[in-house]
């Protein structure tokens, strides 16, 4: 079973990202379970959402404390939220940022992938400068680096799942799939 934790800010689409991931996994015949951290969503305030994906029906209903993959939709969160807490050493950290962060600052020496989801989203008119909608772009990158779901099922999930601009969202996901870059784990 694979466990994913999404970090974002209110209004950036983290919860929809987890739901789209669930839909994509389902389309590939897998059993998904996605849920938001039920707290106080405020535009701009930190938000977390979770996904579980397994080949068998998922048999646990708790929050996720040791994720295999952490996805960060807004890297400014690195300043205030320990996004890597509980992240498995051999796990993956996928960041929406232009460049690679200094690994020590992030406190994680496993695989790190980055993609400029904000740039891609704004280029496709998704959200505004202050609140870019980056969830579909980050999912495109996720498809590439996670090895869990294919880009094709992510695009199909986006088709039905996004509240607006399905085409722009699909293009953003495809573009992020291309642009995502991976820094292999320093640890053997």
């Amino acid at each position: 079973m694979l466990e994913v934790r999404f970090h974002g800010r209110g209004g950036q689409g983290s919860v929809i990202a987890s739901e789209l991931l669930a839909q994509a996994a389902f389309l590939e015949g897998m059993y998904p379970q996605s849920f938001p951290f039920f707290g106080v969503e405020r535009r701009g305030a930190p938000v977390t959402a979770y996904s579980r994906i397994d080949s068998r029906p998922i048999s646990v209903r708790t929050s996720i404390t040791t994720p295999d993959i952490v996805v960060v939709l807004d890297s400014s969160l690195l300043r205030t939220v320990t996004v890597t807490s509980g992240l498995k050493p051999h796990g993956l950290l996928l960041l929406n940022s232009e460049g690679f962060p200094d690994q020590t600052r992030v406190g994680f020496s496993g695989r790190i992938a980055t993609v400029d989801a904000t740039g891609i989203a704004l280029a496709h008119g998704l959200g505004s400068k202050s609140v870019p909608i980056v969830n579909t772009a980050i999912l495109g990158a996720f498809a590439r680096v996670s090895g869990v779901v294919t880009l094709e099922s992510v695009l199909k999930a986006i088709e039905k799942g996004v509240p607006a601009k399905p085409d722009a969202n699909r293009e953003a996901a495809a573009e992020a799939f291309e642009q995502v870059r991976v820094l292999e784990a320093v640890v053997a």
Partner: protein
Amino acid sequence: MARLTIPAEELMRPGHSACPGCGATLVMRYLLKGLGPNTIVTVPACCWTVIGTSFPTTALSVPMIDCAFEATGASVSGLRAAADALGLTDVTIVGFAGDGGTADIGLQALSGMLERRTDAIYLMYDNEAYMNTGNQRSGSTPLGAWTTTTPVDAESRGKLESKKDMMAIVAAHRPAYAATVNIAFPEDFVRKVEKAKRITGSRFFHALAPCPPGWRYSAEKTIALGRLATDVNVFPLYEVVDGRYRITRKLGRVKSVAEYLKAQGRFSHLTENEIAAIQSEVDAKWKRLLELEALG
């Protein structure tokens, strides 16, 4: 240095959890500037339940007493009765509730409080929908507005009913004082609060509280939109003292309501004649208000 036009003392603290650009925080801030520290605020389920932050912190320097969604008016009466019984005579008791908590689920308790002439202030901060639960339609949502429960689609054009006129309902109870206040006009807001503080008996405020995520506009426009609401006569500023109406802001030329509606995503679907229908409703209400004022 320009003299401050409203009291300097801050009884609402920074660090609260309101959305950026939230109108309801300025409503609280100006209310407490007008009333001062000897104030106790009782708050039902609403945005402020969350804005006030979670334990162990509180966003007000004065006591805030949580109460049930339907019962702000009763909580106010209970606090006032206890204050009188315990000799805390000069403390001001305030009920501070949202539009849903006042116009819908809390209307009965408010009516009871007013009918009992409870010597207290009840302020309804009006962001025009159940915003704390994600923008569902309330009785105070304006005609034509999109909300999650009044979607825009083939069979639905946003809210089909007009906004519930709380000031008229409250005025029918003949309170000692009732007024509309708007955060875009803080001086008028605080002056009315200071005036109400000096009056004994039941006093009511209808405060406009623009809401960026709910009304779908960019956060920096909160004040501009609040100003526009009054300047297009959607939210006229007036007070009712012992049944006599007095408009506290009159403009030579009134702007068209279209300018106000087009600045908000929740109205972006409106057609020209839907806007025209809203314009005529606004004009009719303004005309009625002028007539009420003329009654003297």
